[in-house]
């Protein structure tokens, strides 16, 4: 046979065969030792927390307690609303805006730079500014409302107004980022497709329907999933803007878990709240990985 190699026989053959068998193992051991720090970090910061969360989350009593708390149920509704509305409105707007910003004109380029500013502003001053703007007593929004005759609006003093403010802030803050992503994706669509469509007499809407959207739908789905995962775990924006008020009616899962864990000392309940979101997050990540592959 062409591939057949004559093997040495006797003691020399045995040594050679042993070396062939053990050398890769020794190299594997060396590699393993080099990887140990990383493995240790992975176990300490991924496996153990996950194990801790899953074991805590398996306690049925935790869920009995959580479902007996009306705030928990309200929080699930809030989270679904926040994630569902904020992410979808933001991404639809981002998709549309990316089309406008694709223009090569100077004015649009200048506007793009301005448009990116909210993303560049750190979260803390951004939210504090919005809180001051929405203050019932002193906020600029109410000064404007009063000037145009609408009267005082208690922006953060009612559940749905406060959640509306949260969603608005989220869109304002993160819209530029996703617009830039879609803009980059649009630039990757071959121009020849549009030229061919133009020869066939396609207008802007047909271009969008038959070329742009089909070419972007994969990345749109990935962006949606990524944004949902980020938003599902959002703590900072909600905590800084409403802190769950008024009347604990604007909590999302992350802030409620914080409230249970650190304000009430109920770590198991806090973990239970996070565990509520875990299957959804894992599902999103699973779809995401499949999609990327």
């Amino acid at each position, binding site marked *: 046979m062409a591939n057949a190699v004559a093997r040495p026989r006797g003691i020399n053959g045995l040594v050679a065969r042993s070396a062939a068998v053990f050398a890769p193992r*020794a190299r594997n051991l*060396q590699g393993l*030792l080099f990887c140990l720090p990383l493995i240790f970090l992975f176990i300490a910061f991924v496996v153990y927390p996950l194990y801790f969360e899953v074991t805590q989350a398996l306690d049925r009593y935790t869920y009995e*307690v959580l479902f*007996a*708390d*009306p*705030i928990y149920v309200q929080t699930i509704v809030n989270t679904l609303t926040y994630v569902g509305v904020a992410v979808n409105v933001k991404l639809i707007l981002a998709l549309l805006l990316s089309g406008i910003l694709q223009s090569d004109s100077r004015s649009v380029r200048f506007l793009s730079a301005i448009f990116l500013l909210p993303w560049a502003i750190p979260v803390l001053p951004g939210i504090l500014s919005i809180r001051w703007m929405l*203050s*019932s*007593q*002193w906020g600029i929004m109410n000064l404007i409302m009063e000037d145009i005759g609408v009267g*005082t609006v*208690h922006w*953060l*003093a*009612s*559940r749905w107004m406060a959640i509306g403010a949260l969603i608005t802030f989220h869109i304002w803050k993160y819209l530029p980022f996703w617009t830039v992503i879609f803009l980059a994706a649009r630039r990757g669509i071959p121009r020849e497709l549009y030229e061919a469509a133009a020869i066939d007499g396609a207008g802007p809407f047909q271009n969008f329907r038959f070329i742009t959207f089909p070419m972007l739908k994969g990345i749109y789905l990935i962006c949606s999933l990524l944004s949902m995962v980020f938003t599902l775990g959002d703590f900072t924006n909600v905590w800084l803007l*409403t*802190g*769950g*008020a*008024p*009347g*604990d*009616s604007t909590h999302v899962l992350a802030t409620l878990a914080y409230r249970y864990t*650190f*304000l*009430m*000392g*109920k*770590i198991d309940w806090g973990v239970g709240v996070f565990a509520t979101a875990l299957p959804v997050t894992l599902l999103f990540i699973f779809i995401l990985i499949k999609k990327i592959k």
Partner: protein
Amino acid sequence: MGQTRRDFLKTTSAAGAGALSGALGFPMVSRAQGRKLVVWWNRGYYKEEDEAMIKIAQDFQKAKNVEVDISFTIQEDLLKKIIAAIQARRVPDVAFCFYNDWEVMPNYAWQDKLAETTDVITELKPRYNEKFVQVAYCYNNVAKKRAYYGVPIEAQIMHIHYWRDLLKEVGMADDPDKIPLKWDEYWDYWKKAQDALRKKDPAKYGKLYGIGMTESTRGSDTIYNFEMALLSFGGQLLDQDGKVIADQPKNREAIVKTLHWFADLYNSGYVPPDAINWSDGDNNANFHSKSIVMTPNPSLSIPAHHFFNAPDNYFFKMATVEWPDNPGGGKASYMVAVKTILVPKDAKAPDLGKEFIRFVLEPNRFAQYIKGANGRWFPAFNDVAKDPFFAKGQVGKGGPVDYHIPLATKLYLERNVKVFDHWKSPANSQVYAENIWGKAMARTNVDKWAADKAADEAIGRMKTIFTQWR
């Protein structure tokens, strides 16, 4: 030159041996250095407080020949730190946090995670103001008995602060003795002040409110406000044994009246709309900026701020006054929170920790510490409370009369005071931590529920929580 396998194994063996000697050897060296005491202390509001405690720690270190590792942390962070430490069983020997009495002690005494302090309390009992000491008498659900699981040291009570100069500006009596104390007249007085000020100068006072009443779920001030008003309306939530009696007809009626009163007040237009979102610092901030005429506050932090930053305000432009008499007559009863030191059960040196507490609480030494807080707290010990500072306040340090500290002292010593009920059951800690009365206020103020419906939801929730703790 490439590294050979032998070199590599030599290097990793040496590193492993080094790490092992570090892990095993160094603690032994450390243990040989002698006794060490780890103290976590709530950072004070004023540097004098912290300086006094550092001096005490240094004196203890010298007197007992021990190493004292004392650290100061702000209350919100310290609460989280203590909870995490007890869960992880890596605790200090002494922990003093302003939230201990409400959120830590009842819960962890129940779980048998705190050292019993009955020995310390027994020694200190002759010095204690009896009204305060029961706050540490908690139930241990493992030992199935009540005992002392903390050492109470200082108290805070409800006060009402107001701007005298705002009242004066519209010709209203501003002397604390002239403020009407009958229930309706009292609250109407501040409403009248708002109306008069807005009328006098709409541009300046158009956004000013008469009553800075916190009605949110974010503020512990709400709990004080609710419980004070509930006492005024003659209601009780728990009996002496810690059983829920909020659903008894008399108490339910008082709760409904209380919630109704808060809802009316909020919707009257005399309370800032954002008061349902306020955290504990927001009424202070609104008072400092003179956007409210008065505010109830359960410590003297507001006047103390002005004492340091604007003594003229402290002595001449503002004053502190009592909570009004009960609607049905009689002087108000006052809710008191008593701040407490703990020794966790897993502490490495619990006895040394108790020794440190005894050392801190020796009369002269403790008086120095508590006076460093400039009247923010009232001592839990009768001998320290006799210090002239608590009767006269800051007199002579910028003005002839102190309208704040002596009034607070009068409330502690002459009025009927009631310690918050956390000590009776950890379930009640949870009731407060959930701020269910703030939630009930939100039901009436935001969701526009009737007061009786909101009361029933809150009572139901309270009973559920108590059931979960059995």
